[in-house]
């Protein structure tokens, strides 16, 4: 069967009912989609199927024949981040990184499909993705920054300044 991933066509040998996640990771060596729960519950395996975020752990190969698949490998490169990747970098929206691929692709689909999304629509698009590290705040902030075009991919290092937090030094004038 033929599978188009990140614009490259592959001949895939796996059985028709093998999960897309398995094929991407094990056969095509694309490891950005993570095998979290493999039950559709965590979002770490999310890929774009014809631009739509889908959970690749639940997709049998047969269901994506002819579709265009995008994984994080197809978004940008280390020296040329996509706007969503640049926003995640800038806002420290990834800690361990296990959830990050899923959030990046869900965010990218939102950016492409409804760049004017409201806060509620952003939360809706990202809900169902579990992150154990960040407390979600910086992920939401990064996605919104990308939607609003407030990213600086040319920047070389992340800011050290906090975004939400007040810093108090005892004894110093307020």
């Amino acid at each position: 069967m033929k599978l188009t991933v990140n614009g490259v066509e592959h001949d895939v040998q796996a059985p028709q009912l093998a999960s897309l996640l398995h094929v991407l990771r094990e056969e095509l060596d694309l490891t950005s989609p993570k095998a979290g729960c493999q039950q559709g519950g965590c979002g770490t395996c999310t890929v774009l199927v014809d631009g739509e975020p889908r959970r690749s752990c639940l997709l049998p190969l047969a269901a994506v024949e002819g579709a265009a698949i995008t994984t994080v490998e197809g978004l940008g490169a280390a020296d040329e981040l996509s706007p969503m990747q640049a926003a995640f970098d800038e806002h420290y929206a990834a800690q361990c990184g296990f959830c990050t691929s899923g959030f990046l692709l869900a965010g990218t689909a939102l950016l492409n499909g409804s760049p004017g999304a409201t806060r509620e629509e952003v939360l809706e698009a990202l809900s169902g993705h579990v992150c154990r590290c960040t407390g979600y705040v910086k992920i939401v902030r990064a996605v919104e920054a990308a939607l609003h075009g407030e990213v600086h991919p040319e920047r070389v290092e992340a800011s050290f300044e906090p975004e939400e937090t007040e810093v108090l030094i005892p004894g110093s004038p307020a």
Partner: protein
Amino acid sequence: MAKHKGRGIATIEYPTGMNQNGDPSQAWVKLKPDGRVDLFSGTVDHGQGSRTVHAQIVADTLGVPFEWITNDNTNTDSSAVCTGSFASRGTFIGGNAVRFAAEKARERILEIASRELEIDPSDLDVIEGEVIAKGAPDRKISVPEVAAAATWTYGELITGTGAALKPFADVNDDDGSVETEPHSAISYAACVADVEVDDETGEVTVERLIQVYDVGRAINPMLVEGQIEGGAMMGLGLGLLEQAYPYYPETDHRGDEFGAYLAPSLEDLPDLDNVIIESPSADGPFGAKAIGEMANNAQPPAIASAIHDAVGVWVTEMPATPERILRAIDAKRDPRREGKRVVFDDELSVRTMSSTGGNGFLETDG
């Protein structure tokens, strides 16, 4: 049957690193011939940002730009020893190791610069990648030039090693008592939780967490903020949701799949108000103490006391599941005998008729 608002507070103190049994972190710093710096530290970065923080500490200790530092901790075999990334020790103990290593490398930079400039090392300073004579700023040599001179002229590798270790505690063999140095740095935190409790379903919504952390010195405030926000959601999970063995020590009903273990989701995210207080430690790198583990310690007790404020019951087991809250409310609804009185909760009780006009208790004949 109503929703009740409540507010609770919890405070904690948190010691950094392990004590009583030795706890080493080690690091190695060396300069390339062009002045760029290689840092090898054993501390594992699992997203909390220790690689960045350690590179910052080395950059500021040496006096060179952050971008010149490469922090390579990829090879366990050749890396310096580190007990591990736990016990909130990465910045304080691991950070001290890299600081000590950088201080020694800085001494060698000054020594070589001193030979080149013919100025005593004690009269030199390193600022933004240049070794400059104190009081005579035009007498200077760049760190890359120093590194080149070391390599090609003096045949020296500019390097420094650092090791941070709390000594083993003295155990008294007769009575087993332990004598040890007190913790070298203690961080403090407070958390205020605002909750809404539904006394019909037992559900708790955390609406807001106000969190204040004294971390000594926030070497990288954005990373500290990431720890505070992540810790908030972990603490919320511990306080309300997460439970591997609901009937521990019985192993029945433990979850056997992803969906059976509830981790906080985006829908659970409350408003977060964070404050970092910088009250420096004398021993930590640049005054730093710790943020790590304590970031998820204060929320569960703050939430428990907010639940008490809301519906008047103490849930004494974590997590405060709807079931536990409803059982506690039920127990409180039931009138109970206290000496000669039957006591009931006027607001919560549905089974008791008040004949005292809401004074909250009935006298019995007894």
